[in-house]
């Protein structure tokens, strides 16, 4: 698709040379399954066993000092999987880099990033809360936004938006 929004300088639409160089270096040294360009940012899909090492290398060797964001994604297309997407930012080079892992839906376990970035604490709790992804080494992996007694993980696709057993609504005309 064409990216023609001139309001954004080209630097943010095309990958920075630094970002390209780093993603290639990482791909050489670690088990990177895939690296794709997403609207100007490199996204590295890594093997779950290499996830922690890749983020550690990015932080300590390449200077990505900020974990901007971490979230989960539920991919329903076969084979169904849960993904964790972590976004790192190199401030001086103004480069964002995404690191993602695909985890089996039956047993989603991944290393926690808390030892590297304290900011991962709540973001991983949120991801656990909504997707049921377990982070090994997390100091306090409990629900954060939902109530503790909840028996399911609401952002997984199989959970409907509202209670489908409700009988107080007439859905004949405007059912979803």
């Amino acid at each position: 698709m064409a990216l023609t929004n001139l309001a954004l300088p080209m630097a943010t639409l095309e990958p920075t040379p630094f970002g390209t160089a780093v993603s290639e270096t990482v791909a050489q040294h670690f088990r990177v399954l895939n690296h794709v360009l997403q609207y100007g940012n490199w996204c590295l899909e890594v093997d779950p066993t290499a996830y922690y090492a890749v983020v550690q290398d990015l932080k300590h060797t390449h200077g990505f000092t900020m974990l901007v964001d971490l979230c989960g994604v539920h991919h329903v297309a076969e084979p169904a999987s849960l993904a964790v997407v972590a976004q790192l930012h190199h401030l001086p080079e103004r480069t964002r880099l995404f690191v993602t892992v695909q985890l089996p839906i039956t047993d989603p376990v991944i290393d926690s990033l808390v030892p590297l970035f304290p900011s991962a604490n709540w973001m991983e709790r949120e991801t656990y809360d909504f997707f049921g992804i377990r982070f090994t080494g997390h100091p306090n992996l409990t629900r954060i936004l939902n109530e503790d007694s909840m028996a399911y993980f609401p952002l997984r696709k199989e959970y409907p938006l509202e209670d489908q057993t409700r009988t107080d609504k007439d859905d004949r005309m405007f059912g979803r």
Partner: protein
Amino acid sequence: MSQEKQTVTVNLGPTHPATHGVFQNIIELDGERIVAADSTVGYIHRAFEKLAEHRPYYQITPITDRLNYCSSPINNIGWHLTVERLLGVQTTQRIDYMRIIIMELSRIADHLICNGILGVDSGAFSGFLYLFQQREAIYEIFEEICGSRLTTNIGRVGGFERDFSETAVLKLRRFLAEFPAVLKEFEALFDRNRIFMDRTIGVGAISAARALDYGFTGPNLRATGVDYDVRTASPYSRYLDFEFEVPVGENGDTYDRYLVRNQEMWQSLRLIQQALDAMPNDGYHVAVPAFYLPPKAQVNTVMESLIYHFKVVMGEIPVPVGTLYHAVEGGNGELGYYLISDGGRCPYRLHFRRPCFIYYQAFPEMVIGSLLSDAIMTMSSLNLIAGELDA
């Protein structure tokens, strides 16, 4: 008599006048000193990310209103920019300048509340009252532009539904003329005020390295001396056309956060003035008929317009498949939208990167060892917005 040391546990919140929102801080006190703190959030969680997976792109804009409700227009425009980037829409100069004016006005409104309330928490009420008059003026401008005040739902994908009216420009110019004097007065009340300085200097300080570790963004990060601002780091909406500075602090304490916010208001004023003066007349919306609601008068009389209106509202429009992250500089930090589109009428996944959810985790570390009254000041100066915290 037992010589054993006893501590007292105090609950600040969930509904407490000092929290300015619905979240709980459990604080363990040894006398007046805090020895342990813990936070509980989620009291107004509304499952926005789940809702967004069931709503067409347009119907997500009102959801974003309710994130940081002190500066809703920034959230709205951030979302529109994200969708425009997904679609590859190129906006005109006028649209970008109008957006900059609106976003900077809301940044001022956001900082006014934060700094005004900070004064109230330290016992100085009058500054807050003076500032709120000006916030009212900003909301009147919003009202003139889009018809609503707090949850604005401002603008559209591809521009605005209507141009700035004459009254809007008039009110804007009046605000630009009147506000500097008020802000100056506010600064005169606080900047060198002995009580205020004693209550804020060295209170709730965090180092630049720790702030980065904790994912601080926005004025809170800049107060520690890191000049990271999304407006200059990942520019959007032609911010680079204008001259403005990114104010930074030094010590990362409550006083520096206050100073940075005040300085940012002056810079926002500069930006608004420049944008208003340089605004060209090349159209307040661009041709994205599939996303642009037709004029209401036509909807009632022309069949095609009615069809388009229906399709736009119901989201029966093809969108590109793609994954993108777009961030804007919100009132309290980097507000990001991580969007995965599978080409369907609703996003496959939409994640909001809410700045205060991420930096609020540092709160226990910032207050342990300080006095209870300092914790109130620290919390106030972090600009926590419960709606954004809980999404």
